């Protein structure tokens, strides 16, 4: 993104803002396309299940056009926001962490997937001690797992680590009872 300080700067097109408007217009079109997929039974002829969706689609389309107009007139971002460059490397590592989490959570379980995500995200944010981060992640993930899964009864994916520990915890509780 270029941000030359020119007198007529406010009047120039702002490409990112234009893209946002166009993207929103695409969302409105997708909404419209999905409305046609809603089956309408003639029994509910007064106000069927499609009236509100149509209003939403129309609203989104009108707003998208207004955003495109605003983008063409120079956008709405304040200067200091434009001048800060985006840190794509950091963003990339965080995104990689999220993708790793989605991919690994079923085969490996919550704890292992969380450790991988945690280390990648920390690295993206500038931490350079992956081993220490992994250890923190392990403690945190196990605390979250046992806090939620056992105390609140929320079932989060169990993998090898959790199963071993679950057996151990049940064994300990069983001894006490």
């Amino acid at each position, binding site marked *: 993104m270029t941000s030359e300080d020119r007198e007529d700067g406010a009047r120039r097109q702002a490409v*990112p*803002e234009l893209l*946002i408007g166009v993207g*929103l217009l695409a*969302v409105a079109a997708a*909404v419209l396309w*999905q409305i046609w997929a*809603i089956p309408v*039974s003639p029994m*509910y*002829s*007064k*106000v069927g299940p499609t009236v*509100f*969706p149509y209003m*939403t689609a129309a*609203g*989104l389309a009108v*707003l998208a056009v*207004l*955003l495109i107009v*605003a983008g063409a*007139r120079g956008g*709405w*971002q304040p200067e200091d926001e434009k001048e*800060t460059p*985006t*840190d*794509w490397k*950091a963003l990339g*590592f*965080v995104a990689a*962490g*999220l993708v790793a989490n*989605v991919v690994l*959570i*079923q085969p490996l379980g*919550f704890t292992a*997937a*969380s450790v991988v*995500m*945690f*280390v990648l*995200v*920390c*690295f*993206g*944010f*500038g*931490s350079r001690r992956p081993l220490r*981060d992994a250890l*923190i*992640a392990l403690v*945190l993930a196990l605390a979250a797992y046992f806090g*939620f899964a056992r105390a*609140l*009864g929320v*079932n*989060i*994916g169990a993998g090898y680590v959790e199963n071993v520990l679950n057996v151990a915890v049940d064994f300990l509780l069983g001894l006490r009872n």
Partner: protein
Amino acid sequence: MDTLSALANGFAIAFTPVNLMWCLVGTTLGTAIGVLPGLGPALTIALLLPITYQVAPESSFILFAGIYYGAMYGGSTTSILLNTPGESATIVTALEGNRMARSGRGGAALATAAIGSFVAGTLGTLGVTFLAPVVVGFALAFGPAEYFSLMVLSFVMVSAVLGSSSVRGLTSLFFGFFLGLIGVDIQTGQPRFTFGLVELLDGVSVIIVAVGLFAVGETLYVASRRYAGKDEIVPLKGSLYMTAQEWSRSWKAWIRGALIGFPIGALPAGGAEIPTFLSYAAEKKLSKHKEEFGTTGAIEGVAGPEAANNASAAGVLVPMLTLGLPTSATAAIMLSAFQSYGIQPGPLLLTTQANLVWGLIASLFIANVLLVVLNLPLIGLWVRLLKIPAPQLYAGILVFATVGSYGISQSPIDLVLLYILGAVGFLMRRFDFPTAPVIIGMILGPLAEAQFRRAMTISNGDWTVFVTQPLSLILLLLALAGLVAPRIWKVVQHRRLRGQEPVPGDA
């Protein structure tokens, strides 16, 4: 039932050991997440929604209310010591508070913020106690048409009037409507916007939307902005005891702040930012120490806005408990907690769920006392939380985000959805779209649709029903005025400044 005896009954419920424990947990957790940048009450309550399957409604609402109030207290600590307002409602506190901390009066700033929050929070809760039954009296006369029009007014106020741009605010709101429409239509049983996915038949969980926008979106945003300057924690200096002069400068500001904050919060428009800005302006005008504003930091400039912020947080509970009308993201998520218990908030709530409502209100009084104790003597503990390094903090937030979202149905689709919404939240944050209207639109949109269809069924499909009922017409006209008036005013202002030049529309 008489209000006072109802309140006494509420105290009897709130003072049970179990509920006191929930109140303590909520206020402690609330203060912690208020202090931590990047976490807010809406996100925290969303993550804790599964608790509604485990404990009684009284207990979980006492917990949620404690988090809600606690975050308001904790937020001021971050603003004062770090100059990074955790939420929009504490932006003004940072203006004077951080200057006070830099000139060695951080202790007094924290004290006036905490005590002011206590005074205003208590006044605001008293306001809820006595105003709620009155509003219920009015609300009982509302039919579906009036309700729908009131919601339209609320939508316009929340998204178009109170933000920096009405077009972007409304865009967020309509995106929220779309998310709220996903799933099976309750009245006809038809699936809508499921894109052929079985997982979407039940709709998108508000947990996923809130966590995606607030946690994942925020993390991506902070990661992308690493080049922007870093804020430093100002070490806590100065006694926490305020001098006699500081007391005398603070107490009037607290009262004024509460009087500004509560009524604005209680309107079906909500928003905690406007009252803090109004209070700041008022204090600056009335102060005898104008030279301290913007230089060494004026204590009134912390006391007033902090009080206004807490009083308006209390005020927001009025439309929420009496009309079922949430005007902030946190209130909207609390409304979805009601729905998860099968309770529909509305005018009947005070009578059908008297124990729940009055227990909740009583617990707010207790929460205020707990919070002032938690926040003043224990302030050193909260300051230590600020020292958690950003990499581990945000990575940890993402781990808890996974717990909250994956725990719903153990489906990776939920995680994919979470991250898509996170990307949307990132773009919204980057391009200055407000996120609260998304949550409000998502929760309130389906309720507005239900009222709309009910009104149309009663009127036999006659669209004019919304404008022939006087009350409904007035509400719709107010909404229209809210949309159009600021624009006309702006055009008039521009004409005055530049003559007859055509004026580009503001987006």
